[in-house]
């Protein structure tokens, strides 16, 4: 339960920081900021969904995590690592062709990894994980 509450607190802080950033900048958005915002919304939604699932399990006197949920996370993480190798290579290739700042490229790379993990987790959580 403490871990789920911690996740909600972190998500709330990220949302607050995001809103502060947008309103302090006069809400001038371009495509880069919109894509970063979309990635942040996806990650926060993922964290909130996980927190809700944990609380629901605890309320039903079931463990917040069990062998299957831990296995899905491990499988998603390993798949994300494998895919991110190629996405980082692609990002490095395109960075030579564009005039993006290094910090922006790193932010995009990290956001890509978070999105890849969320998608991989959704895939294994819905289609199952056969232990091979």
């Amino acid at each position, binding site marked *: 339960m403490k871990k789920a509450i911690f996740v909600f607190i972190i998500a709330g802080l990220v949302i607050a920081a995001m809103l502060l950033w947008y309103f302090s900048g006069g809400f001038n958005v371009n495509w880069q900021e919109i894509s970063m915002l979309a990635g942040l919304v996806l990650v926060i939604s993922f964290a909130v969904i996980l927190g809700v699932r944990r609380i629901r399990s605890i309320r*039903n*006197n079931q*463990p917040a995590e*069990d*062998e*299957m*949920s831990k296995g899905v996370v491990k499988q998603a993480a390993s798949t994300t690592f494998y895919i991110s190798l190629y996405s980082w290579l692609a990002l490095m290739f395109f960075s030579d062709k564009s005039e993006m700042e290094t910090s922006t490229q790193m932010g995009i790379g990290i956001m890509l990894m978070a999105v890849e993990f969320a998608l991989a987790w959704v895939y294994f959580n819905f289609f*199952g994980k056969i*232990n*091979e």
Partner: protein
Amino acid sequence: MPGYILTFLVRSMNNRIRELRARFGLTQDELATRVGVRRETIVFLEKGKYNPSLKLAYDVARIFEMSIEEVFFPDNGKNPV
């Protein structure tokens, strides 16, 4: 097909959990609580989307007062029971 060849071809396991759950009058929630897992794990087990660990298979079989082989069997279309 010889058993030793079948061993290498098995990719997923099938089971009688849904049938046994109905026989024992257990809901998915109740079975999940008894074996110490989440309800989603029982759902995935019944659909054949997840192969349980040895411990989980043993715990589930113990709830139904059966051996592991009577509850879980290879997904080759044949129920050995």
